[in-house]
């Protein structure tokens, strides 16, 4: 089966800034996660695939066709951009309906498509309210609805989970998985590995405009897990917490902050660590103020991979 998206020796630069650098890539159907820290070139990747940008060099083909100025192809593509794109005075339904009209659907079909997609993102009750009254998560869902309302074959979702609460996030994860099961090619970008893991195991890692790795997410996770994972805790009883953690076999180091109220822990098994942390919290042993992992963002992974 031929790849849905093909980048051939593709470069795109903005003045002296190289956003994508000689990228050769093939992405098949199903869901693919596009991972990379800020500035990696994810949005440029999306823009090149949706005819927003012209390649400076090389070519990009989607569904076997060149993208730039190919309006017939754009009917088969959906985009959910990462930036806010609304007129605040419009209702959610009007926004999706109007974009369906721009897609070329006739009024009745556009209305039905808008209604159905809004229902799928769980916004039916609020669809006739002005976008100005929506929360960030609601706006995100409406933006998502317009991307797949015309039933595109390839869907590009640029950081679709931004601003969503955990419940809405789960609903969107499920929606993306459902779109993938329907046979659509879905490209989801994010800089958070755990988000991507929830929807697919197939990822492309971008870093500084280059494809760093492509393949199964678990292989990448194993690379990460082989190296100690750092977690910072702040709690009232830091020394008690340290005593509880130090006995765990996966813990590599435990150190205190200068003020004694914080712990910096390095572990070889983040999942085991978080399980232990949860049980300590449930038992009331820890009085946790905050938990933060500098390795939660992909920057740490990339730093490891590029070394």
């Amino acid at each position: 089966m031929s790849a849905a998206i093909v980048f051939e020796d593709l470069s795109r630069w903005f003045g002296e800034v190289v956003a994508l650098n000689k990228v050769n890539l093939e992405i098949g159907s199903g869901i693919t996660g596009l991972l990379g820290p800020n500035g990696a070139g994810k949005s440029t990747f999306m823009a090149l695939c949706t005819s927003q940008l012209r390649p400076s060099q090389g070519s990009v083909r989607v569904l076997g066709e060149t993208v730039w100025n190919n309006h017939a192809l754009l009917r088969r593509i959906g985009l959910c951009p990462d930036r806010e794109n609304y007129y605040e005075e419009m209702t959610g339904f009007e926004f999706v309906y109007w974009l369906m009209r721009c897609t070329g659907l006739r009024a009745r079909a556009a209305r039905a498509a808008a209604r159905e997609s809004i229902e799928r993102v769980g916004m039916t009750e609020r669809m006739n309210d002005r976008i100005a009254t929506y929360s960030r998560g609601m706006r995100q869902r409406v933006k998502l609805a317009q991307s797949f309302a015309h039933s595109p074959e390839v869907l590009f979702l640029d950081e679709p989970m931004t601003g969503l609460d955990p419940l809405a996030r789960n609903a969107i994860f499920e929606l993306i998985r459902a779109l993938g099961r329907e046979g659509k090619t879905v490209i989801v970008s994010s800089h958070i590995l755990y988000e991507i893991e929830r929807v697919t195991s197939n990822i492309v890692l971008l870093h500084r405009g280059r494809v760093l790795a492509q393949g199964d997410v678990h292989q990448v996770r194993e690379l990460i897990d082989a190296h100690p994972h750092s977690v910072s805790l702040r709690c009232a009883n830091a020394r008690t917490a340290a005593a509880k953690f130090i006995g765990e076999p996966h813990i590599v180091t435990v150190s205190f902050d200068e003020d004694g109220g914080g712990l910096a822990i390095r572990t070889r098994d983040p999942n085991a660590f978080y399980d232990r942390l949860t049980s300590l919290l449930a038992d009331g042993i820890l009085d946790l103020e905050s938990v933060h992992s500098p390795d939660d963002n992909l920057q740490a992974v990339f730093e490891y991979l590029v070394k």
Partner: protein
Amino acid sequence: MPIYEQTYRRWETPRLRGGRWLAVAAQELRVARTSALYRRLLLLSCVPFLLCLFLLLVTDLMTANPSMLLRSLVRQVQFTNIDARFFRMYISMATPFAFIFCLLVGGGSICNDHRHNLLEVYFAKPLGKGEYFFGKLAGVCYVPLCVTAAPALGLYLLHMIFSPGTALEFVRDSYWVPGACVALSVAVVVPTALFIMACSAVSRSTGFASVIACALLFMNSAFGNVLAEVLRVQNLRCLSYTRSLVYLGDLLFGDRTRITLHWGFIIAGFAVLSLLCAGVVLRRIRNVEIGS
């Protein structure tokens, strides 16, 4: 090979062929309608029409029934004759409204889309940049033309209906008036709309675009008039956009004027202005790119 679900409906309805600009135009009007100022102005713009309608009806009814009571009530008033000048007068009264509508709708037409990042979603759809431009232009021009050309044509028809006795004679004498009304309205609205859209394309907010447009028009008008006065050449007044419109109106409606410039120069001037402004707008649209 995975077997995918095919539960989600695929929309296979006939698609519009080139009618997408209508969606853009309709959206432009929809956004404009949400402004209270716009709605109030829409009501206010009916005043010239109602005034002219009143004059027309009273004149026609007086002509039809010289003995009626109405004549005695209004005999002190010198009513205008319903001729080409009457329709020119209507368009002159409606022109400021047309200009303000162009300013209100056109001022935000491009810059608001930029500010709200809407070009990104527009052009991710199969919407051509030409369609977008034409849709925006149609959206900006629609109401101003409804305020100028449409009521003028309506008044013309009403005059024929209410003065059946002289209708044939009137049509024979002024068959060219509807064409002149449309031509002058288009000459007023389209270059103005394009000019304001160009101002919108190079600015970041509706207010700023409107200020730029007004300032440029004022300076252009002052420049043309001052130059004509200093050099004592009346034709130089046509360097002023507003004065050119007046002169074109004089030519179209057969009014006397001190300017002797050939009408071709005026049309060429408007065409050049329109093309320049369209070029600015299209250049701005074509340069849409998502920064990395």
